[in-house]
């Protein structure tokens, strides 16, 4: 089962640069924001699988929950702030 978690982690490392590409190259601001959101959710999965691989999942899950809450608050604040702006 440990090997399976390692394989899943390596597949996630292949998936993550796709969102990084969208966050860097996105034509306007919202593309970058949504790429950042994808990176955040992928890193939540990454932390959970890493905790399952090392056998300390309860400690890693607290970090996951904090990361998810931080992502929600940040995205809500930036989205509310950008409602009246022109996309650049």
């Amino acid at each position, binding site marked *: 089962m440990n090997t399976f978690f390692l394989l899943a982690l390596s597949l996630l490392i292949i998936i993550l640069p796709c969102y990084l590409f969208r966050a860097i190259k996105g034509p306007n601001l919202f593309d970058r924001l949504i790429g950042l959101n994808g990176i955040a959710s*992928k890193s939540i999965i990454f932390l959970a699988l890493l905790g399952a691989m090392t056998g300390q999942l309860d400690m890693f899950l607290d970090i996951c929950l904090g990361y998810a809450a931080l992502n929600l608050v940040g995205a*809500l604040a930036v989205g509310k702030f950008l409602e009246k702006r022109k996309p650049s």
Partner: protein
Amino acid sequence: MMNFIAIILICTGLFFSLVGAIGAIRLPDFYSRSHALGVMDTLGTLLILGGLASYYGLSVVTAKLFMIIMFFYLANPTITHVLTRAAFKSGLKPWSQDLL
């Protein structure tokens, strides 16, 4: 048996995450990209965390995982909705065939 269910759930979640990543690269427009990312990302994350929960059985870890699953299930569509609404209100035009 629980290992088998966990492996199937995690593999399905990784497949959906991969489809979401391909959609984030290949689709032409912000709205379609946010569609791919919001739907596929939520489903993939929920499936992977559910697979971890079925691997660990009934314990404190499963309660924490269930908390994260409920929070993510509420949070990620909200984020996608807020960003898409902000893009639409700030005047971002949807992609259409005439622009080619």
